[in-house]
């Protein structure tokens, strides 16, 4: 299997898990998405041979990218805690089996009622179901840039309004679960 094909398959299968792991550590959906994209662009597995755990490799690369992005931001003081957590993980060298599964929290954030219903479905398909942005656009018969903008705006809103990356508490859970099930 070519490195590019392997990368595509890893992203398709493990995107949700990777994204959830990144969001869990940084609390910033957009930054997590950007870090993952940047890490995927770095892949040069053909030359050095395939890593034992491609998913673990991607997570480490993405963690480094996320740390860089916090540093570049200048508001480093605000993000110090996130940077420390990221740095610890990056040093520990995660492999596929030690990446905790935060996908349940990711589902709840993607299906948050503060997002429009179409956006919830699109964001869930993109973040958890392994679809590429063009594929999600095709599902809705939307133009790719339009869907790209919808997804960007959603991530920006999640960060700006601070939609939390949590499993809802008992008082919110019934309504939030309903939102997840209707989206699914």
């Amino acid at each position, binding site marked *: 299997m070519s490195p590019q094909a392997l990368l595509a398959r890893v992203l398709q299968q493990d995107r949700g898990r990777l994204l959830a792991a990144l969001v869990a550590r940084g609390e910033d959906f957009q930054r997590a998405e950007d870090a993952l994209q940047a890490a995927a662009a770095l892949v040069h597995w053909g030359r050095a041979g395939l890593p034992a755990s491609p998913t673990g490799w991607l997570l480490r690369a993405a963690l480094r990218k996320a740390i860089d992005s916090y540093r570049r931001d200048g508001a480093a003081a605000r993000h110090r805690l996130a940077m420390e957590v990221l740095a610890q993980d990056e040093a520990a060298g995660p492999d596929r089996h030690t990446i905790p599964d935060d996908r349940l929290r990711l589902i709840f954030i993607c299906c*948050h009622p*503060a997002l429009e219903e179409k956006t919830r479905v699109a964001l869930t398909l993109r973040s958890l179901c392994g679809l590429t942005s063009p594929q999600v656009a095709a599902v809705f018969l939307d133009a790719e840039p339009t869907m790209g903008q919808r997804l960007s705006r959603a991530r920006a809103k999640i960060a*700006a*309004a*601070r*939609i*939390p990356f*949590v499993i*809802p508490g008992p*008082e*919110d859970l019934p309504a939030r679960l309903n939102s997840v099930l209707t989206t699914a």
Partner: protein
Amino acid sequence: MKYLLTLYAAPGSEPAPGTREFDGMMGEYFSLSERMKNTATCLAGEGLQGVETATTLRRRAGRVETMDGPFAETREHLGGFYLIEAADLDAALRFAAEIPAARYGSVEIRPVMYY
């Protein structure tokens, strides 16, 4: 994080002053920040007098223009606000759900800009 909650209601949708429902509603407003203190901290909150008391001001090319009335004619009118400190949007939403205006009208929840 700070959120501004703006309360909107169509005229006539709220209980009229002098009724028992009105007194009940006012009681809820007065006790709201204390009741919700574990969910969010209320930094400020006021009811506004009606849109008929509003004046809108614009400054264009150095000239001040004032207009009688609210900045836009809307079906639901701005009636009040809360400025709250909450950990995240979910906490802000739980606070907003307890505001009486949410039952008769709408409550907009927006994060405050930080620079």
